[in-house]
């Protein structure tokens, strides 16, 4: 199982899903309307490292974070 957390304003509790790659996870999250609208504008971190390819493999225990648009300061 992979843990998915939704940061900042997405305001959704973490979920656990079965996914062996980010591409798998993308298909799962697109089906959740509460999450789907954030996908276009959110970056993705796996185990606290920002990733830029859907080919990234996921393993049980991995933590994926969705990072919506930021504004510090």
């Amino acid at each position, binding site marked *: 199982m992979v843990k998915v957390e939704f*940061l*900042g*304003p997405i305001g959704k509790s973490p979920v656990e899903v079965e996914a062996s790659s*980010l*591409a798998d*996870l*993308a*298909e799962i*999250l*697109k089906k959740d309307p509460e999450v789907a609208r954030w*996908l*276009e*504008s*959110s*970056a*993705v*971190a796996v185990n*606290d*490292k*920002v*990733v*830029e*390819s*859907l080919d990234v493999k996921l393993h049980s225990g991995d933590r994926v*974070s*969705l*990072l*919506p*648009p*930021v*504004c*510090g*300061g």
Partner: protein
Amino acid sequence: MVLVCEGPIDVEALLAGWYCAEHNRNYGAMVTFVGTVREEGGIEALSFDIYRPLLDRWFLGWKERLEKEGALLEMAHSEGDVPVHTSSFACAIFSPKRRVALQMLDAFVEDFKANAPIWKYDVIDGKRIYAADRSTPMAGSGLLAKGR
């Protein structure tokens, strides 16, 4: 590590502390940036969420980049509510050379705005409203919106 403060930053103490700790280490230039909450749009405060593990990782990347130039980077940011006219962000760069200090301050603050994992909310009538219009998608955004 980024110094994360619950609520407003004590700017005077922070700048004094940074200066005290470093002025005798032979850096010729100190530059600082402080961000203070402006009274506008009827807000009583701004409020911030921070994702600390990623913020520290992002900050460490900058710290290492500056170390290669012989410079030192410090940063503090608020979490939670920060009333108008109090400060939510401060950073300092200490460098032997003023050009490095000035250029890196500009580059660091701009990257901070674009890529530090911090989310901003207006606080109006006690309610927290995501500052969507002032927020920027981080580098690499949209990955999970792509098709297979």
